């Protein structure tokens, strides 16, 4: 009988368990899922001496308020997040990218993400979760993953299977950079759009709409005019594909996307910019910049090296 657990006083808006996601299932209709911002997910695990593929708690906008029961454990929060730690009679403001030790009765209150969307809470140990297809990642649309595929709820108890014996406190200086342009590679239906439409896509600003979630990011702005067909024969989709339906407003596919879609693809977000894209909150302005495949591959390689470098400093 485990006696180490988290009690959810307030779940937050969209709080789920996530990890590296699940692959080899697109053909069945199951998307990748997994942590939206992969770099922040990895850093969170490293800060609490976990394996890099461990399960963490992902939250959007407002995070959870949690009370901890059990033996001493480390935790860390990553992203651009405002949170506090309550211990007996004191409450202190927490810093992201720094691990803390808590004990029986302490509380973590994740108040909000700051001008961003997703944040991560990692506990130094193993959460006791049910896996589906080797992943805990919750997909609330298909009800797949741990917690019966549902987001965390008030009054819920999350047990810990194991607490790491390595309780070294870790810290890293890291600031989430914002980028002005999201780099994209030309899509397979780029020529479905008018010359004016193509120009608008690369030169005008779009606004991230409130109707954005883990499935997709909807954009508002000048309409992109289609001159061939506003539908294509349905075909596979991947993370980062930018579809433009008949109304002319682009939709970017994110981690829980439908696996098949029938709207023309004007572009695909380069892998290097995916982590930063998902952090753009409703109301943010977005501009696209075209790059070619070989530049995209090189930029991703550099981004990945930078991630590995950050992890090695922890």
């Amino acid at each position, binding site marked *: 009988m485990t006696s180490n657990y988290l009690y959810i006083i307030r779940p937050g808006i969209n709080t789920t368990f996530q990890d590296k996601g699940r*692959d*080899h*299932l*697109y*053909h*069945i*209709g*199951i998307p*990748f899922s997994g942590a939206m911002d992969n770099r922040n997910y990895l850093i969170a695990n490293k800060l609490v001496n976990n394996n890099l593929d461990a399960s963490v708690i992902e939250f959007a906008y407002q995070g959870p308020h949690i009370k901890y029961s059990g033996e001493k454990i480390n935790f860390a929060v990553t992203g651009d997040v405002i949170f506090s730690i309550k211990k007996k009679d004191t409450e202190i403001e927490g810093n992201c990218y720094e691990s803390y030790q808590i004990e029986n009765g302490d509380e973590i209150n994740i108040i909000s993400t700051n001008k961003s969307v997703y944040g991560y809470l990692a506990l130094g140990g193993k959460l006791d979760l049910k896996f*589906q*297809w080797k992943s805990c990642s919750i997909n609330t*649309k*298909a*009800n*797949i993953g741990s917690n019966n*595929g549902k987001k965390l709820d008030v009054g819920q108890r999350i047990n810990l299977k194991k607490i790491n014996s390595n309780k070294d406190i870790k810290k890293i200086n890291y600031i989430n950079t914002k980028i002005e342009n999201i780099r994209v*590679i030309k*899509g*397979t239906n780029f020529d479905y759009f008018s010359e004016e439409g193509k120009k608008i896509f690369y030169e005008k600003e779009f606004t991230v709409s409130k109707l954005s979630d883990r499935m997709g990011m909807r954009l508002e702005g000048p309409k992109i005019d289609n001159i061939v067909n506003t539908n294509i*024969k*349905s*075909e*596979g*989709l*991947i993370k*980062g*594909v930018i579809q433009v339906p008949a109304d002319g407003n682009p939709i970017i596919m994110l981690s829980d996307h*439908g*696996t*098949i*879609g029938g709207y023309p*693809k004007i572009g*695909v*977000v*380069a*892998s290097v910019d995916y982590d930063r894209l998902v952090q753009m909150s409703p109301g943010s302005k977005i501009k696209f910049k075209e790059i070619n*495949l070989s530049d*995209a*591959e090189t930029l*991703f390689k550099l981004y*990945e090296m930078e991630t590995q470098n950050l992890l090695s400093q922890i």
Partner: protein
Amino acid sequence: MIKNISNLGDAALYCDFGNEVNKSINLQVIKYFKTIKEKKIEGINNLTPSYNKLIISYDLKKINFKEVKHYVENINVEDSIDINSKKLEIPVCCDESFTLDIKRLEEILNLRREKIFENFFNKEYFCYMTGFIAGMPFLGDLDENMRAQRLETPRIKVPKGSVALTEQFANIYTFESPGGWNILGNTPLDIFDSSKEDKPNLINPGDTVIFKEITLDQYKNYND
């Protein structure tokens, strides 16, 4: 055969088998899909077959476009490969509580509902692909006189089990989800079951499906 290979972003290969939608092109796609899937190439993390395209996505940390393209161009796909197809009978109830778009279909198709049901049930369907939502089968082909466009405004919630039509295809909503297809019935069968990890989908690409009409009583007692 693959007519053209291009990149979809920096982490996927877009294999184009042509623009038509027919069984023979789709079988080619399915054969490529099965062959590549069985080889379990390190770095390839997903394959999405559809009517006439195959998208191969990969982990850019492990492999790149050039390497995957070279691999696909040189792969030997046996025409005789067994795609392991099954023939399935799916019970569908057309009680008026389920036929949400039958009036609309009567108007668009200019057919009476009895005739629409007759056409729908007297037909063998081929599963081209599964997806959009988990396990949803895309079944074809409906006769010319049964083809309707999708709803102008999609529903926010389509009930689980809904059987619906659009253009030359029929599909089944495997769980409650948004959707814009014309609904003409509901099946009590679980088409997708996430607790069966090795075989979550009842219907798979290449399978043959026939629909069998059941009464509301049979529907209600189906899972007893």
